[in-house]
């Protein structure tokens, strides 16, 4: 228990095992997703809630791609990933609870 952090040594500790060409592939994904987002929003044929949910999903997808590949989180030790996601619970709590003020 005490030194739990010590033992969960991450496997991929060496920084950069990823190969460079992938960057362009991610760029292509990002480009396609952006086009898809603009298309969904501007065509405006789907029901409103479908549009909102799909747009948010695509935005999160893009954000995760950037964080994982461009910011190398995929290749970092898990403990650094923990640092990176640390504020997300606080963000969720803040926005959800303040929204409850109005929605409840």
């Amino acid at each position: 228990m005490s030194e739990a952090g010590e033992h969960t040594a991450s496997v991929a500790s060496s920084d950069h095992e990823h190969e460079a060409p992938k960057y362009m592939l991610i760029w292509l994904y990002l480009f396609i997703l952006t086009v898809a987002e603009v298309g969904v929003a501007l065509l405006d044929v789907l029901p409103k809630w479908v549009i909102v949910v799909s747009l948010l999903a695509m935005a999160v997808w893009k954000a995760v791609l950037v964080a994982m590949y461009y910011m190398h989180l995929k290749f970092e030790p898990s403990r650094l990933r923990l640092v990176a996601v640390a504020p997300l619970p606080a963000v969720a709590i803040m926005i959800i609870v303040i929204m409850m003020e109005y929605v409840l």
Partner: protein
Amino acid sequence: MATIVAEAPGQATGHAEHEQSFLRKYIFSSDHKIIAIQFLFLTLFFLAVGGLLAMMMRYQIAWPDQPIPGGGILPESMVASGYILPEFYNALVTMHGSIMVFLAIMPMLVGVYANYLIPLQLGTHDMAFPRLNMYSFWLMVPAGIITLASFWVIGGAAGAGWTLYAPLSARPDLTGVELGQVMWLVALIFIGLSSILGSVNYITTTINMRAPGMTWFRMPLTIWALFITAILALLAMPVLSAAGIMLLFDQTLGTSFFLPEGGGQPLLWQHLFWFFGHPEVYILILPAMGFVSEILATGSRKPVFGYKAMVWAIVAIAFLGFIVWGHHMFMSGMNPTLGLSFTVSTLLIAVPSAIKTFNWMGTMWRGNLKLHTPMLFAISFVALFAIGGLSGVFMAATPVDIYIHDTYFIVAHLHYVLFGGSLFALFGAIYYWFPKMFGRMMSEKWGKVHFWTTFVLYNLVFFPMHGLGMVGMMRRIYDSTGYAHLEGIQDTNQLITVAAFGLYLTGFIFAFNFFWSIFKGKKASRNPWDATTLEWQTPSPPKHGNWDEVPVVYHGPHEYSHPDVLDKDWLAQNERPDVVSPAAGSH
């Protein structure tokens, strides 16, 4: 025994900075110890300023119908023909709170001690980012100057309370304060930036720069507390900055984020403010808890009782700290259903506080108590924090809060935690680490005089405030004599004021002792308290770079009175177990 103060410039430290000009060495220094001492002087100054504002407030509350002595030296916009004006009183209320929280207590806990102790207690040469550390101090200076200057601009200093509730804080036409409110927000943004830079440093250093053997659960509780505090500040301060910027735009650009006329939401300000504000409350108490744990262990000559429980309690307090902010808003018009969940989380947070209190008592139990000044302050921290914690239960119980919210009961509660808690711990910490900082001891005799006068007068000032709250005296009122339900409380108010003046004067005993000891105090040895943590294994004061060779840690942080160690009652963290023998002790 006289110490060998290694005056030879540290050659093995790898810092090629000994040939520095005075300016680089003492003013724009990036040495964490110098920065800590700079913070110490700055924050002691603001402590004195904040106290002075409180004295003026107390005079007004006690004798609203009499001119304040010496009021003539203040301009007519503050004190007209000897009487404190209501607008100046509001400025006093606001700036007393703001200065104490943001420019005195918080930077004293974090700026001084996180800076000083994290590298020393973890066994590293300096902070991870020394220059960033320097910026963090030099951002506080303009913040302080802007704050002080705001008293002298037209309209006076900010007057909407330290909580800056919109719309009052956003509309100059409703407060009569024009520039002061804006200046205070600008200062706040500087403070936020300073605090974020500091936190980045503290967190990175703690995570990544611990000495060999200094595992997470061998870190002194002070470090745990400061580390968790830094996380709180890192996640909470930016929210205040964001909210503060929106409020600033409301004031200056004509937006209406928080103004209902333009569709804005006054309650949104309160949510954002308290989302920051409650973690801030723990920023103001957790480091104090860390200092106290350490001083109590050293003074009791015993390991901290339930070290791991103490660590988890700190973590739990910090985590729960992010989900209890609504308890500041029970009467604000917040959705009552939301109030329910905040009640539960608030009562839950009392549990780790209880654990800590009982574990401190457990630390003292069957100890060998050395009642020196730091120890006296630490014990009284436990006594007074218990009162502040228990009075908090009244507010957490929402139905009771309906009555006591925004009364002097709250004032009593928050001062028991902030003054009886944080400041007592800070006094303890100053006495305790003074020898390490300045190489000399503070006078023990005057320390005790300071302690006893402070302790007695402090309780005379703040304990009766519980009673004022029960009677129903509202906070932040300029004159309470106009209310029928407040008849007959003026005697108490006058007693409090007289005691408060006395309390302020005890500060001079401290100041005298502090400055006298810097120059004339008894020379301190490396380890005057026979303490175990790493900073005591260096010369007093440690040289630039702290260590010739980084120490190796073999023990937990508070190994006192170990039965296998015969010649002394402590075991330094870096003492090799196989070397410790009856002849090895030297101090």
